[in-house]
C-alpha cells in the first residue's frame, strides 16, 4: 500500500516542471533564425545584475517578443485542453472523450466567431470586446457539452458509443456552422477556417491577454482540482459514487462548467486544437495511474509540454512557413485514437 502523499505529488510535478523548462528553452532556441541561448542567458543575467540596461536587440526581438509569448500561449492552451480532457473522460466515463472529439471545441469556436462578428458590427470598445470573445466561447462550449451529454444518455445511463457518435456528429455540424459564419459578409474579415478548425498559435498575444489566460486557467483548473477525489470515485459510475458519498449532481455541474471555461479560453485564442486533451491524459495515466489528485496536475504539465513541442515542430519543419499546430497534434493523435479504440473494442 502506497497511497499518494503531498511529497510524492510535488516530486512528480517537479520532474515534469523541469522537463517543461527544458522544452521551453529548446523551443526558444529553435526557429527560422538560430539564436545562441548561451548569449541570451548571459545577457539576461547582465540585465538582472544591472550591468547593462537592455539585452541586445536581436534576442529581444526574436526570442522575447515573438517566440516567448507564443510558447507561453502554448503552455496555457495545452494545459487547459488537457485538464478539460481529463475532466470530460472522468465525468463521461469514457477514455476517448476530449473537447475536440466531443465537438466542444467547435462549439467554443462558434461562440468566439459570433462574438467577433458582433464586436465588428457594434464596434464595441476593445476592452469589452476582449472579454466578450472568451465569454461567448465558454457559452458555446457549455451548450455543446450539454447537448452531447443528452445525446449520449440512454435510459439514464451514458452509452459510450452513442456519446462519441453524438459528439462527432455535433462537431461536424458545428464545423459547417463555422464555415457558414466565415463566409457571410460580416465574417469575411475574420481569421480563416484553418485557424478555427485546426487551431494554431501564431497570433502573438500581449502580456495582458497572457495574464488573463493564466489566471482563468488557474481558477478553473483549481475548481476542478477540489473535486479530484470525487472524480476518482465517479470512474466507477455515478450510482456507485453516490453510495460512496459523492454529491454527484454538484460535482457534475461544477466540473462541466469549469471544463467548458477551460475549453472556451483555449479555443478563443488558438482555435480548435485537437487531440491534446485526448492523448496527454492517456499517456499520463499510463505513467502515473488514474488518481486524479495526481493526474490533473501532471496532465496540465504534460499538456503544456506536448503543445510546446508540437508547436515548435509546426513552426520549424517547413520553416520559414508555419504549419497549423493542430495539424501536428492530429498527425500524432489520430493514430493513437484509433489504436485506443481498437484496443477497447478487442
Amino acid at each position, binding site marked *: *500500500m502506497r*497511497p499518494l502523499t503531498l511529497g510524492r505529488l510535488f516530486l512528480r510535478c517537479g520532474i515534469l516542471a523541469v522537463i517543461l523548462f527544458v522544452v521551453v528553452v529548446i523551443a526558444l532556441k529553435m526557429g527560422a533564425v538560430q539564436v545562441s541561448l548561451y548569449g541570451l542567458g548571459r545577457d539576461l543575467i547582465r540585465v538582472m545584475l544591472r550591468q547593462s540596461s537592455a539585452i541586445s536587440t536581436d534576442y529581444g526581438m526574436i526570442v522575447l517578443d515573438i517566440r516567448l509569448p507564443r510558447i507561453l500561449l502554448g503552455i496555457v492552451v495545452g494545459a487547459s485542453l488537457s485538464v478539460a480532457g481529463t475532466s470530460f473522460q472522468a465525468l463521461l466515463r469514457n477514455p476517448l472523450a476530449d473537447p475536440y472529439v466531443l465537438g466542444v471545441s467547435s462549439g467554443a469556436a462558434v461562440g468566439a466567431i459570433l462574438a467577433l462578428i458582433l464586436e465588428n458590427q457594434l464596434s464595441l470598445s476593445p476592452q469589452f470586446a476582449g472579454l466578450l470573445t472568451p465569454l461567448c466561447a465558454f457559452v458555446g462550449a457549455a451548450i455543446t457539452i450539454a447537448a452531447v451529454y443528452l445525446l449520449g444518455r440512454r435510459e439514464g445511463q451514458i452509452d459510450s458509443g452513442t456519446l462519441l457518435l453524438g459528439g462527432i456528429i455535433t462537431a461536424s455540424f458545428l464545423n459547417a456552422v463555422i464555415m457558414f459564419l466565415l463566409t457571410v459578409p460580416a465574417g469575411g474579415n475574420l481569421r480563416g477556417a484553418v485557424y478555427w478548425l485546426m487551431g494554431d498559435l501564431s497570433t502573438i498575444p500581449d502580456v495582458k491577454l497572457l495574464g488573463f489566460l493564466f489566471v482563468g486557467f488557474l481558477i478553473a483548473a483549481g475548481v476542478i482540482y477540489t473535486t479530484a477525489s470525487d472524480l476518482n470515485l465517479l*470512474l466507477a459510475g455515478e450510482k456507485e459514487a453516490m*453510495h460512496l458519498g459523492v454529491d454527484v449532481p454538484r460535482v457534475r455541474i461544477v466540473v462541466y462548467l469549469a471544463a467548458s471555461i477551460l475549453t472556451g479560453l483555449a479555443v478563443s485564442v488558438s482555435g480548435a486544437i485537437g487531440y491534446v486533451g485526448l492523448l496527454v491524459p492517456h499517456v499520463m495515466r499510463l505513467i502515473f495511474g488514474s488518481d486524479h489528485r495526481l493526474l490533473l496536475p501532471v496532465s496540465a504539465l504534460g499538456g503544456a509540454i506536448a503543445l510546446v513541442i508540437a508547436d515548435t515542430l509546426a513552426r520549424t519543419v517547413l520553416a520559414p512557413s508555419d504549419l497549423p499546430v493542430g495539424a501536428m497534434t492530429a498527425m500524432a493523435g489520430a493514430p493513437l485514437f484509433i489504436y485506443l479504440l481498437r484496443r477497447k473494442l478487442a
Partner: protein
Amino acid sequence: MSTPLRAQMPSAANPSGEQPRGNPDVRLSVEQASYVYAPNPSQAPLFTLEALSFQAKPGEIVAILGPNASGKSTLLQLVSGALEPLSGHIFLNGFSTHSFPPKTRAQRIALVQQESRLLFPSRVWEFVLQGRHAHGRSLRFESEDDITIAKNALAQVGASHLADRWMDKISGGEKQRVILARALAQQPLLLLLDEPTLHLDIGAQVDFLDSLRRLAAENRYTVVVVTHELNLTGEYADQVVLLQKGKCLRVGAPASVFQRDLLEQVFQAPLSVEMTSSGRPRVTLFANK
C-alpha cells in the same frame, strides 16, 4: 410493529448524528414504505412495491428473498436512501435514510453491488481506500488512520494478500471480498448487499456468508442481503422478508417463512422443506414433471 412516536419524528437528518428517542435496540426500521416506478406520471406504473414494514437490530442479518422482478432490488435501493419511498418511512437510528446528505449517508450505509465496473485499472488497496472517501475532506490525502482501517478491512475478509494486486487480475470470489472490504472501510451501521453470491461457486458462497455472519456479529453491523438463494437464506438469515411481484408475503425467522406451500407458490417450483438438527430449514427442489 411500527411505533407511532418515531413515525412522527421530523425526517430531516441531524448532521451531528445523535441518537434520537425510540427503541435503542432497533437500528433499521422500515415503516409502511412503498414505491411506484412509472416512466411518466400519466402512464400506468410499470412496477409497484406495496407498503411493507420490518425492523432489524445491530448484528442481525435480514434476507430479502424473492424471485426475479419481485421488488428485491427496489426495496434495497429504498433502504439505502437512493430512492425516496412514495409513502411510509425508512429510519436508520431514527433518521430517514433518504434525507441524509451523500457524505453522511455513506458514513452510515454501505452498499455492495453485484458488479463494480472499473474504467481504468486500479490496485486492490486503492479500491478499498475509496471506502474512506466519505470520512475525509475532499482534498485531504489519506491519513494513517485511513490506511489502518483499509488494512483491517482487507484482513477481516481474508484478503490482505491481495492488497497490491490489480482489481482486474483477481478472481470473481476475490473481487467480491475486496468489494466487501471497501464497504467495511466505510465503517457503516448498515451493510447492504445486492446478490453478493451471484458469481461465486458453492465453496466461495459458503465462505463469503460465513465471513459475513462473523462480521455482523463482531462489528455489530445490521446486514440486509438481497438474494434468491433459498438454502443460503435458510442457513444464514436471522430474518426473512419474502417478496413476490411487489408484495411482501411474510416477514419473520426462516423457520416461520419457509413453509412449503408458500415457497412453492412464490417460486413456482415443486419443493419440500425440512428442518435440520440446528433448527434451520432446508429446501429441496424437484424437477417439474
